[in-house]
């Protein structure tokens, strides 16, 4: 009986390791595949058979992507909105989270509900669009920054972290005559850097990845961020893909294809995340835990 148990256990353990390895492979391989596709000449890639390493290595796709003025402009917009979005988002979320972690604040329950309610009910896309249009944001870069300053989830993470700071610190600082802004920025903020980094990254990734705002609320094509531009390219590609192999019809002189260019663009969008993310993984995980437990 016992021998049987251990044998089935052994089989399970081995299968489990195989499954986990496969799982990790399936998760990572698509990124790798597109990575080698971006480093291969488009014409050669379309012949198929490139699985693990580039066959006809080239950096042409990247140089063309960066030379493309539309792609370059969209990247500057993405970087701009990410930087501004993180700074402003962090600043205003910290202000609010600090105020609402103070339990003696009159009206605290009301404000908490006022904030929470927006997460369970909303007016919908059309009234929101009309509002953006009436404010003139649909023709402006600020469309990406101002309407996304606040996020309930980030607020919750930060408030939980501020609430963990011992109250005595605030009280003794007050006795010493420190003002609230000083307590927040010189005591609470330095004590919560890990969580602030987490929130900053959540905000940053959100901005970097957001394609929807640009695609549906932005009426100026020259203000598209990179993610939106990629979506538009994707749409164009899917409308031509059925009619025929573009790769077969393009002239023999051209070694790249719109697909290989697009792959370079996808990698340019993905690289910053892939590079930064493993280092910050533990912070992210902590942030998720706080957010989900309290939410």
């Amino acid at each position, binding site marked *: 009986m016992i021998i049987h*148990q251990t044998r089935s256990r052994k089989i*399970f*353990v081995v299968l489990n390791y195989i*499954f*986990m390895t496969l*799982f*990790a492979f*399936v*998760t990572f391989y*698509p990124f790798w*595949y*597109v990575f080698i596709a971006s480093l291969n000449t488009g014409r050669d890639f*379309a*012949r*198929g058979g490139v*699985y693990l390493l580039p066959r006809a290595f080239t950096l042409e796709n990247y140089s063309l992507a960066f030379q493309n003025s539309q792609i370059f402009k969209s990247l500057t917009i993405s970087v701009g909105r990410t930087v501004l979005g993180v700074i402003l988002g962090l600043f*205003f979320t910290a*202000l*609010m989270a600090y*105020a*609402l972690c103070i339990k*003696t*604040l*009159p009206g*605290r*329950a009301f404000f908490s*509900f*006022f*904030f*929470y309610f*927006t997460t369970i*009910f909303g*007016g*919908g*896309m*059309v*009234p929101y669009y*009309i*509002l953006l249009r009436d404010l003139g944001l649909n023709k402006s870069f600020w469309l990406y920054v101002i309407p996304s*300053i*606040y996020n309930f989830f980030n607020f919750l993470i930060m408030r939980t972290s501020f609430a963990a700071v011992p109250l005595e610190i605030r009280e003794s600082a007050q006795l010493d005559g420190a*003002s*609230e*802004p000083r307590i927040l920025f010189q005591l609470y903020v330095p004590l919560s850097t890990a969580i602030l980094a987490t929130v900053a990254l959540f905000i940053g990734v959100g901005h970097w*990845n957001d*394609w*929807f705002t640009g695609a*549906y609320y932005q009426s100026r094509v020259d203000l598209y961020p990179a993610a939106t531009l*990629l979506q538009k390219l*994707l749409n164009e590609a*899917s409308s031509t893909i*059925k009619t025929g192999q573009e790769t077969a019809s393009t002239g023999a002189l051209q070694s790249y294809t719109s*697909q290989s260019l697009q792959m370079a663009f996808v990698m340019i969008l*993905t690289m910053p*995340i892939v590079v930064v*993310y*493993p280092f910050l993984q533990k912070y*992210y995980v902590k942030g*998720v*835990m706080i957010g989900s437990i309290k939410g």
Partner: protein
Amino acid sequence: MLGTALIAQAAGTPAGKKRADLRKRIWQHRWLYLFILPCVIWLLVFCYYPMYGATLAFKNYSYKLGILNSPWAGLKHFRTFIYSPDFWRVIKNTLVISGLKLLFSFPAPILLALLLNEVQAVRFKRVVQTFSYLPNFVSWVVVVSLMNVIFSPYGGVINDLRKNAGLDSIFFMGSREYFYPMVILSDIWKNAGWGTIIYLSALTSVSPELYEAAAIDGAGRLKSTFYVTLPCIKGTIGIMFINAVGGLLNAGFDQILLLQQPDNQLISDILDTFVLKTGLSQGRFEYATAIGLFKSVLSLGLMTLANEVCKRTMEVSIF
């Protein structure tokens, strides 16, 4: 959970204290009100004003008059929607996609967490986790781009392998019969790994003594999973379930939007994409607002229902 916290706070506010006292306390906290002010204004403009704007659903919108002064139209737009041939199609698509996701995508991270929990080699486990979280951080646009290349009939790795095996290549991304499998597979690929975080942490809180006791009682690994592990993390599962049901009518909006193709439109139109199409693309503002409002109210109802069910059966609730 948040709800009970709110009630607890409300009970803690000194209702009987004198007005002057309250005024003094408000004055003491003046800085904090100043801190909240920008966000309150922001919320009023970007969240509460559009809620008011949802009254558009009951009006005949005129660009010149604005939302406030446009004439009332009663339930006309709701009626148009409910009697339109699109109604059942869109509702059905939304529920089918959400149902499939509840069936396949919801249990995926639980299963994955249980299996990961059995992995003894710490470093191996960490590597697998690092890989599995990655797709959560890239946008759906990138995911769909990756899918387009991998499943491409022209040189994509899947069809390449099929050809080598002597099979015909399939246009996975554009064929109607592959739409639902693609939706579910990509959903699991992108979200299952990240979803394990919360279950893994719930699993660490299961006391080892319980396993020992189960082992003494002769329970094997599988049995103790069913009788020890799952009951211990059912609270977490319950909360995730309530959230999943609350988002049932969303059905993964931007994923669907990006995977939509002319060929699969009949089965891929969900409530949100339909709002987008009728509202922002065709300019039928009131009609689209009515559909959006219909969805919001229904979602809130569903969430409350799931909350009640979980409260009764699993003793967990979110409000």
